[in-house]
């Protein structure tokens, strides 16, 4: 240390700033206020160090700590998501998707809707008189689904109409009665019903969300819904039933004009 000081002195002893400092320190005022000089220098060094280095770094430390906590939370959520996804049986879920598409197809699937409604009418002993459908879509924002309208006019008795109402609720395809008008009864027995049905569908999404978003697998409620759809579709012709494996055999004249 002493060597360093001597080296410093020998190098800068003739420097103008050093001579200036020596001149100042020889003054009487310096001797009077000498006790305050070094503390002032210490403050001069410490205060900028505190303001420009210490405090900003302390605040940054807290900010970075919060950032690290946030990243750790996201990491944990992603690891949970990974565990969930790795446990997913792809084949089962493809089956679930097919079942859910029976109830809520990705497009209007008008043919299936018509056959479904006709089946419900027939099985409830309603005599169809008029059938129209409007292909303009209606949106149900509460469930984020779309629907198109089907208008039916039918003759039946009250019991048949009630049966139809009950079957609409349990049908494999998602249907809902929007309007109901009933008239008749003067002649006794038959009533004329005009029923406006909503037939639901939901296009498949093009985006599934962000990587960081959590997911949950199907719960018991979902499995019950799938079970209901599966059961009701099995009892309805044309819904999810296995097609006949035998090829159709036709009998009769292949060429009746011969």
């Amino acid at each position, binding site marked *: 240390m002493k060597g360093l000081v001597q080296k410093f002195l020998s190098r800068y002893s003739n420097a103008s700033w050093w001579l200036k400092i020596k001149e100042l320190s020889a003054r009487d005022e310096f001797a009077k206020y000498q006790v305050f000089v070094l503390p002032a220098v210490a403050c001069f060094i410490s205060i900028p160090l505190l303001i420009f280095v210490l405090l900003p770094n302390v605040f940054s430390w807290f900010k970075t700590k919060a950032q690290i906590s946030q990243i750790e939370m996201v990491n944990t959520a992603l690891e949970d998501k990974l565990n969930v996804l790795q446990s997913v049986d792809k084949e089962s879920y*493809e089956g679930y998707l097919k079942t859910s598409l029976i109830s809520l197809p990705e497009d209007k699937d008008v043919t299936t809707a018509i056959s479904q409604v006709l089946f419900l009418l027939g099985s409830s002993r309603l005599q169809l008189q008029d059938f129209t459908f409007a292909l303009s879509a209606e949106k149900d924002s*509460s*469930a984020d689904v779309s629907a198109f309208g089907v208008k039916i006019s039918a003759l039946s008795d009250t019991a048949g109409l009630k049966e139809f109402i009950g079957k609409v609720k349990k049908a494999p395809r998602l249907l809902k009665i929007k309007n109901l008008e009933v008239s008749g009864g003067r002649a006794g027995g038959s009533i004329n019903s005009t029923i406006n049905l909503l037939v639901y569908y939901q296009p498949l999404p093009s985006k599934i969300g962000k*990587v960081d978003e959590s*997911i949950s697998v199907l719960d018991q409620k979902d499995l019950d819904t799938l079970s209901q759809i599966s059961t009701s579709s099995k009892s309805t012709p044309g819904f999810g039933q296995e097609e006949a494996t035998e090829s159709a055999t036709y009998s009769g004249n292949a060429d009746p004009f011969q």
Partner: protein
Amino acid sequence: MAKISINLLPPELTSTRQEKTKRDLSVKASIAFVIVMVVFTGSVLALRLSQNLSLKQKESTLEGNRKRVATLEKEEGLVVVVKKRLSAISVVRNAESDQAQSFILLNALTPQTVQLFTFNANKSDQVTLSGETASTQALQTFFNNLTDPAINEGKITGVNVDNLNKGQTGRIHFDLIVNVSSQSQTVTQPASTSAPPAKTDI
């Protein structure tokens, strides 16, 4: 024997010594303060450095996890789509058709000898109906069923009589507007001791 001490040093020397002591103390305190500040600043900077290294490591782990999740996008797509679809199905299925429920409700509240001719449920909370009956008592029972919350379980919030007249045949014709509450449920058959039982057919 008590010692006698005599200070032969001049007072100037004593004051000089005191000043020197004060000066030395201030020098040492200043140097110590600067050293403490520098050490403290160094520690904070070192902490920040290690924190930044930790942050980089966490970010790297996060990126790795994101990539791993991205490789399972097909599974994720299946789960998300099926879940959303089933939720939508559940919501629609659980939302009762108010019009259908109104029909079942009013059917249950209509006595046997009251004949309904028209039933119109175009709005979710209003039903327009018209009918006839030969019995004033049956009509009274019908109105009672419609207006008594104990019988209709609070499902009917109001009844407006649009038209009420008696024809030449003696049959009483009525046109009613019945306000029903939404999400009405099936009501049990109303109990009536003297009036005819409620019918199930229009």
